[in-house]
């Protein structure tokens, strides 16, 4: 099966003299797989996500996403790669409050060079699919947490990314909204979307992920796929 993510000997240090906050670790994620990364605070979950997203660069090792090594790309090249191949949803949504829902969703498409009409059509399609069509002209500040996260996911998917990264997607939501988002991620996984999900929420991990990796002190303490093989 084709690998969407390949991490080889990846380590990240913020202090050159100190111990790495992540790794060294080796990990791959196959196309269509939904990986949940769990672990206590400070275990390196977010760092791992940032490295995969190209938001940060590893100190050691290689990061290959969608067949391309991104660990030594320039900031500009990583930005281009990200908007073409990666969609991200965050715990606090990170929506732009001064743009409407539809403008937020269209923005990555427009950045990638899509025409206004094409971007709008794709945004409409996603809003319809995610049940937020009625909020198209609304501003994020007027939506509930669950609705905002749906907008964030729609924005993440607008460029049909090979990989969807979700960082604590239910962390800031009440239980009802959290349930909605959980169902959304399950549907996406069922539809074949490759997902990496960073979460504290084991229920979410069990519900949405086909595989779980548990990090402790920056290292993989448990990989459910390896366990299954054993």
């Amino acid at each position, binding site marked *: 099966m084709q690998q969407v993510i390949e991490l080889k000997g990846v380590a990240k240090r913020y202090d050159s003299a100190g111990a790495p906050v992540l790794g060294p670790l080796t990990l791959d994620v196959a196309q269509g797989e939904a990986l949940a990364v769990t672990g206590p605070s400070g275990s390196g979950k977010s760092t791992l996500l940032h490295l995969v997203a190209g*938001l940060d660069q590893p100190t050691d090792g290689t990061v290959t996403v969608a067949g391309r090594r991104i660990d030594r790309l320039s900031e500009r090249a990583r930005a281009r790669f990200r908007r073409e191949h990666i969609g991200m949803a965050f715990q606090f949504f990170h929506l732009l409050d001064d743009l409407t829902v539809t403008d937020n969703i269209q923005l990555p498409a*427009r950045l990638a060079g899509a025409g206004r009409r094409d971007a709008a059509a794709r945004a409409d399609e996603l809003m319809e699919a995610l049940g937020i069509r009625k909020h198209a002209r609304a501003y994020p500040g007027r939506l509930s947490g669950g609705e905002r996260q749906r907008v964030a996911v729609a924005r993440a998917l607008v460029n049909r990314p090979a990989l969807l990264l979700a960082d604590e997607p239910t962390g800031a939501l009440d239980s009802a909204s959290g349930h909605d988002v959980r169902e959304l991620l399950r549907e996406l996984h069922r539809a074949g979307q490759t997902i990496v999900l960073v979460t504290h929420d084991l229920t979410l991990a069990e519900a949405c992920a086909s595989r779980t990796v548990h990090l402790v002190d920056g290292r993989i303490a448990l990989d459910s796929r390896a366990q299954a093989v054993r």
Partner: protein
Amino acid sequence: MSLFGTGAIGRIVRSGVGRRRVQTAVIAVATMMAVASAVVAGSLMVAATAPFDHAFERQRGAHLTALFDPARTIAAQLAGTGKRAGATATAGPYPSLVFRPVDRAGFRLPALTLAGRPGPGGAVDRLDLKSGRWARGSGEIVLDASFEGPALGIGATVRAGDTANALTLTVVGFAVSVSRTAQAWATPAQVAALAPAGSPVTRQMLYCFDSADTKEQMRAARERLTGSVGARALLGTQSWLDTKRAAEQGAAATVPFATAFGLLGLVMSVIIVSGVISGAVGTGLRRIGILKAIGFTPGEIVRAYVAQAMLPAGAGIALGVVLGNLLAVPLLSETEALYGNIPLAVAWWVNVTVPAAASVVVGLAALVPALRAGGLRTVDALAAGGSPRTGRGQWAHRLTGLLPLPRPVTYGLATPFTHPVRTLAMLLAVAFGTVAATFAVGLTSSLTAVGAAQDPESRAAVTVTTTRANTAAPPPPPPAPGGRPGPPLAHGHAAVPSPREAADPAQVRAAVTAQTGTESYYAKSETEVTAAGIPESLQATLYEGDARGGSYAMISGHWITGRGQVVVPTRFLERTGTTVGDTVRVTHEKETARLRIVGESFDTSGDGLQIHAALADFPSAEPTTFLVDVKAGVSADEYARKVAAVVQPLGGDATTNAPSGQEGVILVMSAMAALLTAMLVCVAGLGVLNSVILDTRERVHDLGVCKAIGMSPRQTTSLVLAPVTAIGALGGLLGVPAGYALHGLVMPVMGRAAGTVLPPAVLDVYEPVQLLLLGLGGAVLAVLGALVPAGWAAGTRTATALRTE
């Protein structure tokens, strides 16, 4: 206890200043530049007035200098005139005469008043000996200090005339008379010895009065004097008010523009400081809320925020005072040289008033936003600081999103509407910077035009003279205090040659016309004439041929087109009470012509009394200079060489003309304008920098989101720069007409201060392309100011930006 009342406030101030290092630096630099500009402006104002008054008071200058006919007065009678005229002090009578010395190189110096005085002191007009010593015996002379230079120093000799038996005098000193009673001094016996046979020396008396501040008072004093000796005995008088006016004209002309720059600097400082502190309050709401929550009173908050502005502003003000003093030095030393031993420095009250005023202005500018901080309710501040902004500028995002531009650009274009006040501050900073630049460009162009208008000769390619150029440079014309020329020297700085050395003008004319490269030429003669209504002699330039190429800029009327016409400067019209169209009698030697005034020239040379007429009106005058334009493709150098080869054996010469150089005062003013503009443009750039830093910091999270979803560094840069460019363009659009208007307002005031009306050639100096470029300069200025924060926004790590809430 700390400087700020309590240790806690001091700590808060220090941390606030430390956290906003760039803004702190911006405040310091902005106030430094504003204060430096204001100190320079203040110094110029002082230089325009105080030095003359100080020097006059120190020298016990003569309010009235009177010349008496020795045939109708006796010395004892003159000694009593002071009492009868109501004078508080008198000096004299001193023998005096007007003579025209010739230096070793054969150049005739201008006509000088020579006074015979036993020493430089006295009850009135105590001369400052700048170098050398006073004349002790025969054959010694002291000259006005303005003559001192490489060509004429202590020990140099001059002849009392150009005759073979003229006395030789050794220069033993250089002195300054602020009241301009004479330009040369010798012992009384020497003056008597220099008098031509049968023409006794006149008697000079110097008077001081209690009341001599107005023309009316001076007129009354003169009338009393006339009454005491009889009208025919009094040959002429010179009022100190005229001397003072002439002395102050040069520096006075600089006051309006320096004031304009000072005011611009002050306004910009207010904009910058209020912008920075408003920004600090706006972006620090959460911090203010926390401070209040832990027990800071509103008053302490206000003091803390005012202090955050006053700390860097205080440093900037101190540096500005130092910088202003340093910048004022070259200007003041120019003026100082004109007043003898009067040491000129920036007045103490300028060094006190300017920083005090700047402190008050900066303090008030900071107080308004600080009061807002102090007045915030704690819960509101905490809530406002912790929750995301919503609502502001959303309509702008909707509108700009429709523009057919790249999305980062349209997204960026909406951001100014999120913070309208900050946007306004940035707009004003750019607009004022553009005003300063536009004004400075106009000012320097006008000053250049003034310089060119005063030197029309330089327009001709080649000058052919009836005399040979001397290897030794003639001494400079002695400027009166304030930079205006003193006694007349032949116009164009060409000293009048001794007649025996001159070539025949007809032969020189023939040499010019015989040259195949001659396109056109006109000839002229510099001479002295008298005109009805003006007692002293005037400088006149008499033209032969089509002299339009050598015309001065015209304030009204037109240049001479033939005989019977005369062009005169403004002061001539004022002195004679005539207007363009009137007729005036002009006498050259024994020839008198009635000439119609056809134009008012812009000419400040020769004390503003140089007139221009046709050579044909005075048949005895002969041309001494031929100004030639060469045909296209003909080398002026080659042409001059060919003509020189012909005329040099005759006693003449030919040289190419260098482009018009600028006079010292004009150069200084241009340099000052450039410097002050550079400062204000820097301040404007810093204002933009401050606003963009505030915006970028506030939006760093949004920028992180944009980058996380794929915005490239270049797109991020364009997002940040797009609104700044738009604001800069708008600022330029507003600033250019305002600068244009300021130029139109200040230049005539400068002209009036210099005692002249300015012609259109000096006022209408802007080219459309220049204005367009200046307008675009607003956008360039704004982009330059925003480049650093834009680069910072593009370079910030996305992960870091996302963590910033």
